[in-house]
């Protein structure tokens, strides 16, 4: 029984949940919707167990620490946050169709983690040995997860608005006003967590290096993401900004999230693009 085993099973549970939700949507079989929720929730429980098990495993190796510090662990936590945020929303807003659009993101995050990254538990360099790491990483990922759900909703919105007829699979999606309202609420939720994430990162940087903001690529891109969602939130107040534009913003925002999360590390690594002083 290892954490990798638990997490691999979780990956397939999320895939299965996504399929159940898909059937629920396309064929209108509510029992599949229930199965989807049940599978996703079981996955989340197993996922949580896997997370804590890996934490325990790190103690066995002699350098005990919360599993949030490398790409593998962050992808695992990202997947966890997406499903957690989604299930919270499903519970509050009672719509299971959204699951069809959200579960693939969780599944992809887990799958990529399992198949493409280094899963070794490495000890932490001194700069990462801080309680700020836990707060900063968790808040950032809650934000990322909410923005992922908002993006899924944005896609849903655009698909729904393309649907000409009132019949068929498209009509089984919630109406545009509801989706628009959900996009707004999800973005607000994500924005709060992202703000706390950026701020805790800044306070930590100040304590580690004496500089709460150095315009380094990671920091700058997280701010870019923040600007995009701040614009989306305020756009809501503008008459003439249709739900379609905001749906687009939620997708562009997600692209920014992806770049902040992965792009900076993989694409910008060689450039040493640091703000002067």
């Amino acid at each position, binding site marked *: 029984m290892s954490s990798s085993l638990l997490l691999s099973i979780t990956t397939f549970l999320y895939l299965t949940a996504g399929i159940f939700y898909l059937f629920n949507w396309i064929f209108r079989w509510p029992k599949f919707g229930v199965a989807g929720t049940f599978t996703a929730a079981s996955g989340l429980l197993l996922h949580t167990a896997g997370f804590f098990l890996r934490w325990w495993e790190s103690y066995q190796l002699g350098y005990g620490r919360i599993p949030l510090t490398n790409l593998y662990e962050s992808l695992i936590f990202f997947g966890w946050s997406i499903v957690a945020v989604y299930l919270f929303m499903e519970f509050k807003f009672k719509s299971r169709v959204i699951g069809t659009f959200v579960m693939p993101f969780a599944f992809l995050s887990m799958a990529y983690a399992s198949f493409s990254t280094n899963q070794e538990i490495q000890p932490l*360099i001194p700069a990462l040995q801080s309680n700020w790491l836990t707060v900063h990483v968790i808040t950032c990922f809650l934000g990322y997860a909410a923005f992922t759900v908002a993006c899924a909703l944005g896609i849903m919105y655009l698909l729904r608005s393309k649907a000409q007829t009132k019949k068929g699979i498209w009509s089984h999606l919630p109406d545009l006003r509801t989706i628009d309202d959900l996009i707004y609420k999800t973005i607000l939720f994500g924005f709060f967590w992202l703000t706390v994430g950026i701020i805790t990162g800044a306070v930590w940087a100040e304590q580690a290096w004496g500089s709460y903001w150095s315009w380094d690529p990671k920091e700058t891109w997280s701010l870019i993401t923040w600007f995009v969602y701040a614009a989306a939130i305020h756009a809501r107040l503008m008459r003439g900004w249709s739900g379609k534009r905001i749906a687009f913003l939620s997708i562009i925002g997600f692209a920014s999230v992806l770049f902040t999360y992965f792009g900076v590390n993989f694409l910008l690594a060689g450039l040493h*693009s640091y703000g002067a*002083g």
Partner: protein
Amino acid sequence: MFKNKFINFLASLKLAIFILLTLAATSIIGTVLPQGQPIAFYFQRYGEAAGQIIKFLQLYDVYHSWWFVVLLVIFSINLILCSLKRLPFSLELYRRDPLAVDPKKLTRMPAAKEVSLKEDYSLAKGKIKEIITKKLGSVKEVEFEDGILFLKDKFRFSYFSVYLVHFSILVVIIGAIIGAIWGFRGNMTLLEGESSNQVILFGLERRTQPLDFSVRCDKFEIEFYPNGMPKEYRSEVTILENGKEVLKAPIEVNAPLTYKGITFYQASYNTFAEVTLRVLKGPRQKVLIIKPFSQSEWAEEALRIGLLGVQEAHGLIAVQLWVSEKESPPVSFWVLERHPRRIELPSGQAIIIELSDIKPVYATGLQVKKDPGVWIVWAGFLGIILGIFAAFFFAHQRYWVAVIPDKNSTKVILAGFSPKARHKVAETIEELAKEVGNLNNAS
């Protein structure tokens, strides 16, 4: 003031969204174009035309460039004006008397329910109050000509949370400006035992900032994981003022030391070495210890040997030394551990140098900063977090319950209003109506 077209534009939401998206897009430049290089670098790498553009737009330092600063200034003005423009509206919403309603017209509210109770008015009144208080907390009650009106007004302050957010953002900007003008950031590298009162500032010019006290690194301690990665490292330092030892303290990663408003961070370290050599010249030999960047003398043989560097190659340690006999120019060479080396001196004689021992000597890399604005920035951050939390999670809600006698029974109208929390209000009214309706079944 907002009748003026230009000011109105500066205070507009349209401008706010435009600036936010423009800041987002232009910030990308500094992450893909190398920053902080000398101008020549850009001309060499990107050519004449691009080089001129980069020079004019100061793209070598995007976030301090003139146009980026202009954007930030417009952003700040817009933030202030937007907030001032909206403030009267929020004040009006805040001041709106919740009791200025006609209880009988409450049914027109978007979330309203009407319930008829069989009970007598005077009895029903008390029971209803109990139900409402249990669900909503303490309520205000007002008698009007037809009956009694209960009111719960929740989180009325939330109209102002958005102003707290905006104000706090400005506070952060002010704090950052104060830090930039009256603060500094730089490095100080100290070998164990060395002391300094100079900070080498960041930036291309490498200017120095003198401090009115000295810092001496007494000891540098480091621990490694089995795989060679650093596990923990720290410096033990002493602060000296006018030659007197004033303070002894450790500096650890994530645990800086602050003295007289200047903070020292354990940022990095460099590894040097102290080497012990055995030098043989003919029948005579001598053991010399050479510290980093210094030399040792074998006076009897008029030999001086200095240490230039230490490196590891193919699993062996190699030291780079120079040797000078009498006043002759020094000759430099490498000596590997376990491989004594024979060197021919200019005088014709030869010496053999053997590396007996190597001890790591560390230089601690401290980052030094002074930032008088940092606490202002912290206050701003706190305000932003509290403001967003209040704005999003404490929406203003109003609940009215009118209890009106209707011959021998009682009419109850429940209504709720919240521009931002429609669902919550509708749900709550639904539940309250149900509970009130249940009174019919109870009796």
